[in-house]
């Protein structure tokens, strides 16, 4: 492999991961005056970030990496749904959601092999 070929993933990490994320932190150092956390702008920012994060979750479920792709789509979707239902009913516990969702995924994968 060429030198550039070896370095390429790290250059991409800097350009596509570090810089676009870190610029907001550095901007936070520069913004001297307090930004009201309850301001409308901050609420819009949080809404966009929330939708984006939900989108990432959905994309991993619909277009999973190797290893998860072997589990049928229906099993993945049912597992996330029952995990989320468990989270909602069991005092909004993230741990409960993860445990139930994981159990659903693995049992489903055993019963319905891809």
């Amino acid at each position, binding site marked *: 492999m060429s030198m550039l070929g070896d370095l390429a*993933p*790290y250059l*991409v*990490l800097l*350009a*596509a*991961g*570090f810089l*676009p*994320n*870190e*610029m*907001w*932190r*550095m*901007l*936070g*150092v520069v*913004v001297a005056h*307090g*930004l009201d*956390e309850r301001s409308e702008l*901050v*609420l819009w*920012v*949080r*809404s*966009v*970030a*929330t*939708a*984006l*994060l*939900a*989108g*990432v*979750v959905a*994309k*991993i479920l*619909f*277009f999973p*990496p*190797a*290893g*998860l792709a072997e*589990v049928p789509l229906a099993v*993945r979707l049912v*597992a*996330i749904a029952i*995990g*989320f239902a468990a*989270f909602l009913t069991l005092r*909004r516990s*993230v741990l409960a959601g*993860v445990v139930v*969702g*994981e159990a659903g*995924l*693995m049992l489903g*994968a055993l019963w319905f092999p891809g």
Partner: protein
Amino acid sequence: MDHVPLTPVGSFLAGFRAAATSVFSLVLIGTYVGVGALGHNYGFSLAWVLLSTLLVWAGPAQVILISTLGAGAPPLEAAVAVGLSGMRLLPMVVTLLALIKRADTRARDLLLPAHLTAVSMWVESLRLLPTVPREERIAFANGLGCGFLLAAHGGAVLGYYLAASFPPLLTAGLLFLTPMAFLASTARNSRLLAERLALAFGLLLAPLLAYAGIGLDLMWTGVLGGSAAYAVHRLREARR
């Protein structure tokens, strides 16, 4: 109560100890087990995953980066999505720095605490810092952030090696950790109507845009889904 002043190193260690006993360390280990496993199965090296943890230091941004680049998307597309998700760090950094800085604090002393700011560190800082004397807060916050960073690295290494050595069923479970935990924790952090709607819109929009073959689908999911949710909130406020 009398407080014996701590040296900067002492304050750093106090923050580090606070991280060790915080429940967020366990949450971070769990989150980064998922990130490490994703990194492995999307074909990244362990060094790359650890460097991304050190440099990006935001679980959502790292998952976006790993899943978009790993699926073969162009770096620009990943950068735009990471940039949009990173916006939420700005108000967090501003409120954290307001809590730790003094009139004579130099800007460069704020760079490290700003870099270490992530959801876990921010929540714990806001809880713990008011009990720490102001002149010790920067070192304390740095210790807290470094403690969390160490926990995350441990989780990432563990997840990376487990994904490499687990049988297929357990690997699938490991890779499922990230979507399941991110969905539940995002829902938990969504207290306002706009945020809850944004969560629902994002879940629906992303697969639709992706199946429709629309470029920059994650960016549009965030901008359209988030703005629509925010608009509903504004309409409701206006009707009151």
